[in-house]
């Protein structure tokens, strides 16, 4: 028999304490006879079951089990869903609303307008009203949408790794606050422009006498440091490329999305590249160690090792008459130096020198700008009005860590920083944290620092919480949330700081409004509504410091710094150098868990899902490492890079045009984010676990290698002493979206085919229509020339066309190659707008990436060994009028619309892939697997509801954002007017900071796109195929210096 000793046998009534209720006096008195009488109703021998368990117990257990078993099946959902009993004003279901807000990036705010569909943010754009944005964005703003719905975001407050709650944290903070007089609090935060945070800092300082406030960024902004030396307030330089005629960049990648002022720079630069009425345009010289998009945009580019850069800059400075003190070097009479210096001197105030991550180069650039008289014209030094708190963050961190190790910090608050990961490992931050009794980490993820901290508080995404900030130029904005925090425990940085400052849990909204009270004057509510509606407060830009008020001679300090750091103007120091860069996709690693960015091809190397050690072919040869192309896949050797601080093991990638003996690595990889999601299991038959990029824990975990172990303590971006690099292995698969063939030959073939057309300014002046030179005379077809078998055989007269007449709108696109820098913003914008899925490293290496617009990168001239030029060409669908894809589809799944776009009918497609084969531009993308079927639930919310999510087995491609066209159709129909020029903006066009993409109605001769089509520089890609593409290109114009050109 089954023994079920589960329930204790009922205590006999006499053993029970005296109950309040009694049945008889005998019972009350505990009479044994009574007990014997009432104890059982059966005879003693029949009493009780054979085992310990009574029949009654058995039935009880069975009954309970049955009831519980039944309950599991009929559990009601506990989520409360509620309809809008009262519809919010102005909200129409299905019609997106737009809200102005902003995203903090590198300590400044990027003003945004975010689209919200039925209460969830679905697309991010720049704020077109804002003086700094012009409606464009970079890759990070676009991709930050995905971060909101990141399935790996942390959800709970954790105390010692165990789920706690916000109230517990509030109690903890209140306790600490009560002891603030003696408590030693240290706060480690990122640089920020938030006025509320600034106010909270003062509040904290007032409340906590022992406060340590350290601002720290893994990627330092050396320009602020160079221009701010000796000043009381923090400053930042703003470059006006549109006013410049001659620009020199010293390893400064000012056109990349990682630049703090990228949008302004790109727009200004694009403007300066347009040939003006006088037939002039700017000229860009770039001296850089690695290949960047800025180098690609250059008229002259010289590969200079990063360690040589100060000497190189000093040589130019010398020629410009600054710093006669600088010693002569090998660069002094270099023809490039001479030509550039002369050109700059000639340009005078319209010359401009910019630099990158190197402090000495920045200082020299500043000195040269002063000498040229460029301050005030091409460069403004903006006064942020904030007393500068840090000029040397490495020194501040050193002292903080020393204090932590000595036990002089009681409470350490880390807000949105991840020093355990991104500080150079030699700091030993994790060990230092262990010495602090209370460490509090607030962040979006359960990251490396969160795991090491005692408390972890989930941070809100910027679209979930109130905040504020100032754009690069200073204009103030309120960051308004579009959605309540997805996870209840999440709080914003200002809320957490505010809690520690006062011990009271205050809402971010109140904190921000309190800050803004004095800012916007008496009629607060009206002005406040105005500000959050517009997204900014006009007239709050930072003033420029008057030229000539420098308190420290930048040149002098640069030379001093160089003298300290070794031989300043000496010739190239032999030996290898390692240069650290912020990754153009993951930045410092804070964007690492973003699959869009992981799969965004690097602008130059086109590598995805990995960080690689970039080097020139000659360097690779001398290190005896190779990247072998086997069956279309890149198998790279690995190298062990050892610096005095440590060593890492990285795969190699070889690029032409890099300085020799210079090895480049990027930050941001090798993250370890803890995800609570279950790993997707799999079996031999089902491949979902192999094709799902979200299937193996956090996206970023295990991708690439962290370079923190080899970063120097000084956080300098270059290490050139005692670097050793040795081959440590081979056969590492690197996924790249281009270069599946031999690199130099491919590019040469592309240029031979006239896919990318460019001319020098001279040539353009002589022959504005240079783009057509290589084309045969177009065949002018006249219908009358062809014998007609039937009367009225013209397509326009055929019944099918008559039933469905041509639309008055005929959409087309013109892409100006002279403006495009290849910054990738269009690609991510397209991905966000059109629900384009990521496929993961393995699938990219198989050539199955899904991007609808790609940036084709070719190298021109000079071979792989020299310093070839780089050109970039965005290729979306061309929407051919005579589309080769359409005629080959057996089921008519791709057809032409009356307004001239080539449309893909997903639910008709059966997936023969014939259309993709027959597409000469290869812009069609096939869903080889069910990419959307495996998406975590939260990511579905990021989808644009106006774009079909594609399933397995169908073809897809650029649609010219047909959903936006149709929206404009509806709007204009309702308003009974034609669509205005510029009313329909494609996602790529909207994001493009250079304004390189123009979309519009070709049937309207006044439209911008029609004007673009009349531009003599216009050409069609593969025009000779007579597919009549609707997308066309404007040829690029280079402006080389004749002196250097002749030498080359």
């Amino acid at each position, binding site marked *: 028999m089954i023994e079920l000793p589960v329930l204790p046998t009922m205590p006999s009534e006499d053993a029970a304490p005296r109950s309040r209720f009694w049945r008889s006096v005998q019972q009350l008195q505990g009479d044994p006879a009574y007990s014997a009488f009432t104890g059982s109703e059966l005879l003693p021998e029949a009493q009780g079951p054979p085992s310990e368990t009574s029949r009654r117990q058995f039935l009880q257990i069975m009954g309970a089990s049955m009831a519980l078993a039944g309950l599991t099946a009929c559990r009601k959902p506990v989520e409360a869903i509620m309809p809008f009993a009262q519809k919010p004003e102005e909200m129409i279901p299905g019609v997106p609303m737009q809200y102005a807000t902003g995203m903090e990036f590198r300590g400044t705010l990027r003003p945004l307008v975010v689209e919200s569909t039925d209460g969830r943010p679905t697309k991010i754009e720049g704020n077109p009203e804002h003086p700094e944005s012009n409606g464009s964005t970079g890759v990070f703003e676009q991709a930050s949408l995905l971060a909101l719905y990141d399935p790996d975001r942390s959800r709970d407050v954790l105390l010692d790794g165990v789920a706690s709650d916000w109230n517990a944290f509030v109690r903890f903070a209140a306790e600490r606050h009560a002891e603030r007089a003696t408590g030693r609090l240290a706060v480690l935060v990122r640089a920020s422009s938030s006025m509320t945070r600034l106010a909270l800092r003062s509040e904290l300082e007032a409340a906590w006498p022992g406060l340590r406030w350290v601002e720290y960024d893994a990627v330092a902004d050396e320009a602020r440091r160079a221009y701010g030396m000796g000043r009381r307030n923090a400053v930042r330089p703003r470059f006006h490329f549109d006013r410049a005629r001659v620009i020199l960049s010293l390893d400064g990648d000012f056109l990349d999305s990682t630049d703090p002022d990228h949008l302004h720079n790109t727009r200004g630069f694009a403007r300066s590249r347009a040939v003006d009425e006088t037939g002039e345009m700017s000229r860009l010289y770039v001296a850089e160690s690695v290949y960047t998009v800025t180098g690609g945009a250059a008229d002259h580019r010289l590969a200079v090792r990063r360690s040589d850069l100060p000497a190189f800059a000093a040589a130019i400075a010398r020629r410009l008459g600054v710093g006669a003190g600088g010693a002569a070097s090998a660069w002094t009479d270099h023809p490039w130096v001479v030509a550039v210096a002369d050109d700059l001197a000639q340009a005078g105030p319209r010359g401009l020198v910019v630099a990158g991550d190197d402090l000495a180069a920045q200082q020299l650039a500043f000195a040269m700008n002063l000498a040229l008289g460029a301050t005030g014209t091409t460069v403004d030094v903006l006064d942020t009005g904030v007393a500068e708190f840090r000029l040397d963050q490495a020194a501040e961190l050193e002292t903080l860590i020393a204090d932590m190790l000595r036990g002089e910090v009681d409470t350490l608050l880390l807000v949105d920083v991840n020093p355990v990961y991104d500080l150079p490992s030699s700091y030993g931050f994790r060990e230092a944290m262990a010495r602090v009794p209370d460490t509090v980490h607030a962040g979006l993820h359960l990251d490396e620092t969160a795991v090491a901290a005692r408390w972890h508080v989930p941070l809100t995404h910027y679209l979930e919480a109130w905040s504020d900030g100032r754009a690069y130029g200073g204009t103030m904005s309120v960051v308004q949330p579009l959605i309540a925090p997805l996870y209840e425990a999440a709080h914003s940085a200002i809320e957490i700081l505010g809690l520690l400052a006062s011990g009271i849990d205050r809402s971010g909204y109140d904190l921000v409004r309190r800050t803004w009270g004095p800012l916007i004057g008496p009629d607060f509510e009206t002005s406040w509504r105005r500000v959050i509606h517009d997204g900014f407060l006009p007239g709050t830009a930072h003033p420029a410091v008057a030229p000539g008020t420098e308190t420290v001679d930048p040149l002098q300090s640069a030379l001093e710094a160089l003298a300290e750091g070794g031989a300043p103007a000496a010739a190239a120091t032999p030996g290898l150098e390692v240069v650290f860069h912020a990754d153009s996709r993951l930045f410092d690693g804070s964007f690492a868990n973003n699959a869009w960015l992981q799969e965004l091809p690097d602008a130059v190397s086109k590598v995805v899902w990995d960080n690689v050690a970039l080097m020139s072919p000659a360097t690779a040869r001398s290190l005896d490492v190779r990247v072998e192309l086997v069956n*279309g896949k890149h198998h790279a050797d690995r190298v062990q890079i050892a610096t005095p601080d440590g060593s890492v093991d990285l795969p190699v990638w070889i690029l032409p045009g890099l300085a020799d003996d210079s090895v480049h690595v990027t930050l941001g990889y090798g993250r370890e984010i803890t995800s609570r999601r279950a790993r997707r299991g799999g079996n031999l038959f089902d491949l979902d676990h192999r094709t799902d990029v979200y299937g193996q824990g956090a996206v970023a975990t295990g991708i690439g290698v962290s370079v923190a172990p080899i970063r120097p303590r000084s956080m300098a971006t270059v290490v050139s002493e005692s670097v050793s690099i040795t081959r440590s292995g081979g056969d590492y698969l690197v996924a790249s979206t281009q270069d599946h063939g031999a690199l130099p030959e491919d590019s040469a073939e592309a240029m031979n085919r006239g896919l990318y057309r460019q001319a020098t300014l001279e040539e353009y002046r002589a022959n504005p229509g240079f783009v057509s030179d290589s084309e045969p005379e177009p065949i002018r077809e006249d219908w009358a020339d062809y014998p007609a078998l039937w009367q009225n055989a013209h397509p326009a007269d055929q019944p099918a066309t008559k039933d469905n007449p041509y639309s008055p709108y005929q959409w087309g696109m013109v892409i100006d190659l002279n403006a495009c820098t290849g910054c990738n913003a269009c690609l991510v914008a397209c991905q966000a707008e059109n629900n384009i899925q990521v496929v993961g490293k393995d699938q990219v290496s198989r050539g199955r990436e899904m991007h609808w617009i790609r940036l084709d990168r070719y190298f021109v001239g000079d071979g792989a060994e020299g310093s070839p030029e780089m050109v970039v*060409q965005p290729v979306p669908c061309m929407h051919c009028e005579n589309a080769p894809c359409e005629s080959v589809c057996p089921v008519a799944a791709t057809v032409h619309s009356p307004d001239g776009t080539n449309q893909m009918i997903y639910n008709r497609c059966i997936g023969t892939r014939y259309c993709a084969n027959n597409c000469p531009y290869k812009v069609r993308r096939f869903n080889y697997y*069910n990419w959307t079927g495996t998406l975590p639930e939260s990511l579905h919310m990021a989808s644009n509801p106006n774009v079909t999510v594609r399933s397995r*087995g169908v073809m897809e491609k650029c649609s010219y954002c047909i959903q936006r066209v149709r929206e404009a159709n509806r709007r204009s129909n309702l308003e009974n007017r034609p669509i205005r020029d510029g009313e329909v903006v494609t996602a790529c066009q909207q994001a493009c900071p250079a304004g390189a993409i123009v979309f519009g109605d070709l049937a309207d001769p006044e439209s911008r796109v029609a004007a673009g089509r009349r531009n003599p520089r216009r050409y069609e890609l593969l025009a000779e195929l007579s597919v009549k593409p609707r997308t066309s290109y404007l040829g690029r114009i280079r402006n080389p210096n004749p002196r250097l050109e002749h030498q080359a």
Partner: protein
Amino acid sequence: MSTVPHSAQTAQAIDDPPLFGADLSFHDVTELVSHHTEKKTPTAWFGAFALANAGLLLLVAMIAYLFWNGTGVWGLNNPVGWGYAIVNFVFWVGIGHAGTLISAILFLFRQPWRTAINRSAEAMTIFAVMCALIFPTIHVGRVWVIYWTLPIPNQMEMWPQFKSPLLWDVFAVSVYFMVSATFWYVGMVPDLASLRDRARSLWRRRVLGVLSMGWSGANRHWRNYEKAYLLLAALATPLVLSVHSVVSFDFAVSIVPGWHTTIFPPYFVAGAIFSGFAMVVTLLVISRKVYGLENIITVNHLEKMNIIILLTGTIVGFAYITEFFIAWYSGVPYEQYAFLNRAFGPYAWAYWIMMSCNLLFPQFFWFKKLRRSIPFMFAVSITTNIGMWFERFVITVTSLHRDYLPSSWDYYSPTAVDILTFVGTFGLFFTLFLLFLRFAPMVAMAEVKYVMPQADPHFYEGHGDGRAGADEPEVAPSVSPTS
């Protein structure tokens, strides 16, 4: 008896070697062929069948895996949207050319030697087309809506797009399959009747009785039969040429450099005949030995097929060279690059396999000794099929992998699923072929008998020339055609 096969003999020269070996009687032929379907199944057959069935199971498993996961299990990528599936499709369709060509075209051209081989060649055709039809079906991304390629009236008012060569394929291949199957079956009716008459068991007799459609050998039956056979041959003949022409349109109609070529239809048809004959040689060299049919399928038959292989191989090789010339002559850089890339690019190995197998090796058949050597012809038939598979691979993959924009260039390599699916189709093919060998008369007995010497009405009078001659006794005095 009909006049058709008899008058075919008029073309024969006197000193042609006899078509069949030994001194076979009609009965010998019937016995030789029929007893294979009647005897106890040999153990070796079971062994072969088990092997073929394993291949078939592999095919089913690979297709199930494909349907479950998606087309991604193959090695396809963005520039190369067609790989093994389409290569295999064209390969099998090509093989499926020989049978109908032998039965129909050689019938119309009065080639008596075809009678020994046409039945098995036709069977091969039908089975090869069945293998071929699998691929366009499974290669689509959404196989569950493959019927949208058929013009089925529906409530969506959606119709296939008749401009697409893929749709032409659907019609061309399915019609070819239906006509070939009908032709094969009609030709088999007299032989099925022979089997029926020999059948011992009731069920065998009944089944064969139904299949032989009441054939009694009556004069009227023969007349109707031969009319039908002639008409079907006339119907099948253009299909032999059209089906591979249409398959070639899949490529020729596109604008991909290397595909966009007007030479494709004749070049594909020649290639198909080339590969089809090679496959027939492969199969017959084995089966005539295994089934002791050396006297019916003689070396003479094989030699004639080898001559066709030599001819079509030379045509195909000529086409390869012409393509190169035209690429240069056209002045189109994309076209020029595509062909140079074939010969010297990453897939050069495939190209040179193709060139040596298709152009070089068959040239040895200029030597009579070699084209009558069984081991040699077997080797060449195998290399020809390898070469023809690679021809389709070269055309499909090397053209796609590097077309107009170098940024999109990539490399295609098949996955294990690709390869095993192809292997699996051989399982299907041999499963069907073994069933055919076991249950159907593998040689067209009736047709062989037409062209045997005994078919000459004067044969037994002893003044025949030893072979069947024109027999027009009702019209003219009996005169030997050779006298």
